[in-house]
């Protein structure tokens, strides 16, 4: 044998639980906001439900080490192949790496993971409240309701800091739901916070509220709508190492009767009913 102790000679690429994907397009659609479309030659899992996420491997050499969780923004099954849309904001090293991906780049991911948004009962009205990069999973929900013939029941509220950072929803021809936008500086849509849009919306006992965005925004939504609507659901974000329930790193505090307990955002969430959440849940998310 001549292999010696060279590192390369016993590297085996398989088995792996990760799914192979390929970048179809990767485009900066607003300042620091990227729309990544992935093609998967073999989709062997169940179709993701809106609110579920994937852990995307950024690097194979151990730095950055951990996968990045992204809520799925869109998913289209074409026979054995599938297409997935991820919308990400560049916030650090990992997402910085991801901007270098271009058409044909190989990508590996784990998922779909977690529990998605419970679908609204017939006859209810849905208010989707998206703050900044909390938009993607709510896009998936809006698209799903629209394709199920319920787009008319949906109002999507979307807030950003300013026009430059904002995804232009008119560029999504399949969205098909009513929406309203706002910016903190008034450069696009109404001036103010997305919770101001929510304050102006009609909320009743037949309303379901779905929210995803920065923790202070979701806490404000929770305060406003609790007890005033049929139910409300929040997609929480947390730092996580594994995404599938083993590291216990993404713990968040929730109600358990009169007490409290830690649950995992990746496994018991990321979507939680407002009934379970307290002000502390949002502070920790």
């Amino acid at each position, binding site marked *: *044998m001549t*292999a010696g*102790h060279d*590192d*390369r*000679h*016993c*590297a*085996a690429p*398989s*088995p*792996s*639980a*990760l799914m192979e994907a390929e970048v179809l397009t990767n485009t900066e659609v607003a300042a620091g906001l990227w729309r990544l479309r992935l093609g998967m030659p073999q989709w062997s899992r169940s179709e993701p439900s809106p609110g579920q996420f994937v852990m995307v*491997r950024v690097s194979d050499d*151990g*730095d*950055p*080490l*951990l*996968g990045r969780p992204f809520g799925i923004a869109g998913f289209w099954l074409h026979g054995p192949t599938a297409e997935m849309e991820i919308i990400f904001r560049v916030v650090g090293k990992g997402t910085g790496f991801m901007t270098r991906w271009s058409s044909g780049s190989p990508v590996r991911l*784990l998922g779909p993971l977690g529990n998605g948004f419970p679908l609204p009962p017939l006859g209810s009205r849905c208010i989707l409240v998206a703050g900044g990069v909390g938009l993607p999973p709510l896009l998936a929900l809006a698209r799903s309701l629209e394709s199920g013939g319920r787009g008319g029941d949906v109002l999507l509220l979307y807030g950003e800091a300013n026009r430059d950072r904002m995804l232009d929803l008119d560029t999504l021809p399949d969205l098909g739901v009513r929406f309203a936008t706002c910016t903190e500086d008034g450069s696009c849509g109404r001036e103010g916070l997305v919770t101001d849009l929510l304050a102006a919306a009609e909320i009743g006992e037949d309303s379901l509220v779905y929210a995803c965005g920065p923790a202070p925004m979701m806490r404000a939504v929770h305060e406003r709508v609790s007890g005033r609507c049929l139910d409300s659901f929040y997609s929480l974000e*947390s*730092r*996580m*190492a*594994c*995404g*599938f*329930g*083993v*590291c*216990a*790193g*993404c*713990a*968040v*505090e929730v109600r358990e009767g009169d007490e409290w*307990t*830690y649950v995992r955002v990746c*496994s018991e969430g990321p979507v939680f009913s407002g009934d379970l959440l307290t002000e502390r849940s949002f502070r*920790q998310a």
Partner: protein
Amino acid sequence: MTGKNRKAVPDLTVDLGRGLVLKNPVMTASGTFGYGEEASAYLDLSELGAVVVKGISEEPRRGNPPPRVVETPAGMLNSIGLQNVGVKAFLAEKLPFLLDRGATVVVNVLGSTVEEYLRVTERLSTAPVIGGIEVNISCPNVKEGGVQFGMCPDMAAGLVASLRSATDLHLMVKLSPNSGDIPGMARAVEEAGADSVSLINTITGMDIDIRTRRPALGGVFGGLSGPAIRPVALRMVYEAFGAVRIPVVGIGGIADPEHAVKFIIAGSLAVQVGTAFFLDPLTPLRVIKGIEEYLSREGMLSLADARGSLVVGDPG
């Protein structure tokens, strides 16, 4: 490769002593595998050398406040804080699942006092199907996580001697890299009756958010793991191998078969895969396959041929 050139399939079996026999040298590291339930969605637990479950204390523990994890260069810090279901619920609710799936189970045990370690160990010893106990004297994340035993050879030896008199189960003692003297610690627990040592646990570290000027972790300090600690772990395994006769189990940044092979060459008889499991749940199976391929390619018939085979000095 043609039929006549085919090498004999190497024997991957590992006998760690006192009844703990692994079908291959790859275990999961405690705290990275839960109790096997989530992992079983991805892999057959019976294919692993052993499952080392999340550390078990006498009573359930909620763990530390979030944030609990933060990424670092080629690694991560965790401050989970030994969240666990407690020994009673483990035996009633978690162990049956692992056994049903054919796993060889090593239970990581922790406590605040010698008495707590003893009570947990005695409870576990009533379950005759447990493969062994890993004595956690090295968790850096809680004040009463046993780390005080891991810093002082006399205290570690006292604890191990007490456990030795209380159980016939295999006792694997997990050593802390935060102890300055790995050979001394390894010898102390060997003399007190340990059947093997596993190392390293995480290295204590911290990170700071400069915007908020707060610690990046709710528990302030955390344990560093991942590729960043591999060279330190490898050195400590090599030191421990030179110090004791009992088997050494290597842990620290093992993500690929070649990493495991390095630990075996340094003196490990078995290894544990931890943080790399977070990245791909099939990592342990990939490591097993790669070790077998390495031995086969090198013409080695068993792990013993590779173990401790490091050549130091003039190659002649």
